[in-house]
């Protein structure tokens, strides 16, 4: 009886995994297919990767995406970690309110936040007399950081919740200077969660489509925006080729996140 149940469970989980991976695999397969019309049967060829190497528009969009994601990672991780440390260390009036304010950026549909940013940035730029400043890579970055900040604060904050304060006190009692305590105790304890938060921030930005879509002026795009435009205009397997590359990179990043989470002992209570 137990064996039957177990194989049923296994079968179900495999079905779910097939559902999750089927379209991704199909997409990757067509990246290596010669036909520009996605015709079957498959004919193996690297032609679309070669075409991609010469597609300046797509490559430039890819470069923009990486640059914004990197800048976003640095800004969101530092600002978010600072706020998380304040929440973890101090009890103060208005703390609950500040923490509650982290939910609107997550809970309001991106469409609404994106269009609101579009209007507000246009309006501010007009007030300052520089209308062309309203849209561009810099405002896309502004938006991405805003979306990443709550996640960073949550991820780092989760680690600070069970922060072993006694260790710091012990070190201080034993004569360590505050600087030494910071370097030898606080940083090593926090580092894994900060790294995880940074990778999280990178992924949030690299994947973000809606905000970038509204804030990108004509001619300046990020990869998801460029892909969306191509899909609507009629697409070629070059999109599959670059998508395959993105998926490999994103999944690789996630695997690294998983490793850091393990090393951080976040999931030690698992077993």
């Amino acid at each position, binding site marked *: 009886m137990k064996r039957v149940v177990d194989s049923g469970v296994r079968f179900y989980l495999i079905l779910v995994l097939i559902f999750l991976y089927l379209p991704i695999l199909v997409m990757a397969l067509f990246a290596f297919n010669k036909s520009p019309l996605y015709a079957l049967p498959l004919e193996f060829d690297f032609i679309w990767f070669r075409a991609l190497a010469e597609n300046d528009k797509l490559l430039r969009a890819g470069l923009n995406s990486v640059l914004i994601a990197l800048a976003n990672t640095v800004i969101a991780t530092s600002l978010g970690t*600072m706020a998380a440390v304040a929440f973890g260390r101090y009890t103060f009036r208005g703390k609950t309110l500040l923490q509650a304010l982290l939910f609107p950026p997550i809970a309001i549909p991106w469409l609404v936040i994106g269009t609101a940013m579009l209007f507000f940035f246009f309006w501010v730029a007009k007030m300052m007399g520089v209308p062309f400043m309203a849209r561009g890579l810099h405002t896309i970055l502004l938006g991405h950081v805003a979306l990443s900040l709550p996640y960073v604060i949550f991820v780092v904050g989760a680690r600070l919740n069970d922060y072993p304060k006694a260790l710091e006190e012990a070190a201080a009692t034993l004569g360590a200077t505050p600087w030494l305590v910071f370097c030898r105790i606080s940083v090593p304890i926090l580092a894994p969660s900060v790294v995880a938060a940074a990778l999280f921030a990178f992924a949030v930005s690299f994947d973000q489509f809606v905000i970038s879509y509204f804030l990108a002026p004509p001619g300046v795009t990020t990869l998801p925006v460029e892909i969306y435009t191509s*899909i609507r205009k009629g697409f070629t397997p070059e999109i599959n080729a670059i998508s395959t590359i993105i998926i490999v990179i994103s999944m690789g990043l996630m695997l690294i996140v998983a490793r850091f989470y393990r090393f951080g002992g976040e999931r030690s209570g698992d077993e």
Partner: protein
Amino acid sequence: MTPTTRTRWAIFSLTGPAYLWLTCTVFLPIAAMLVLSFLDKSPLVPKPAGFTFDNYIAYFTKPFYRPLTLWSIQLGFWVTFCCLVIGYPAAYALAKRVKGRWREAIFLLIVLPFWSNALVRIFSWTMVLRKNGIVDVAVQSIIPGAPAVDFLGTYPAVIIGLTHSYLPYMILTCYIALQAIDDSLIEAGRSLGATKFTTFRRVVFPLSLPGIISGSALIFVPVIGSFMEPRILGGTKGATLGMNIEEQFTVTANWPLGAALSFVLLAIVLIIFGMLYPFLRRQTGVA
């Protein structure tokens, strides 16, 4: 700890930058958008704008918006429902039936695709569902001469694509809730004579409700505001409120109307959560 001037200064300088950033990029824009929704023309044009309720009146009086709103809400419920039906058993199997290394590996495999680009995943469904796509070719090779299978541009296509996009959220939140349930509680229920199903219904399910609720909220909110997925998979059929809002900003350039529609969308989300709130509170209050 009582805040001294020094700690107050520390708190202020640590939280200040993050919240200043959020204020300038989220809170002020949302407030500005609320004002915009009551103007008769965008303040970006040279002519002075006046106060009006017309944008909201337009939404409530034009029959055009009714099917859009209805389909957006239905889509939200359908996708949440599908994610729950597929995701909950998977989370349960993972949390209670699979152990050790396998659990970790499968868990990672389930959350991995949700780190690949959402747009790319929606795009890949077009190759599976369209005529001459994978499903069609598979059906044709098994039953030669069968009618062509072309899902692309239908309601189910949108539901399938969105369910695929958001399924990991549901599995993740339910898994966390289920995994936290102490196995001894289940054993206690069993040893006191409850059947497996009763133990599940009276012990496991109520304790996992917080996971179901947060998963549903995480799915419902973005789905009801979706515009890219219905556009790619649904084509001309099944326009959503989100698609119309996008058009107001990018095509027709009627920003005040778009702003009003955005707040209608937000209001719908709030009303639905408000209606579920007493029920949810009663359920989670037990735990």
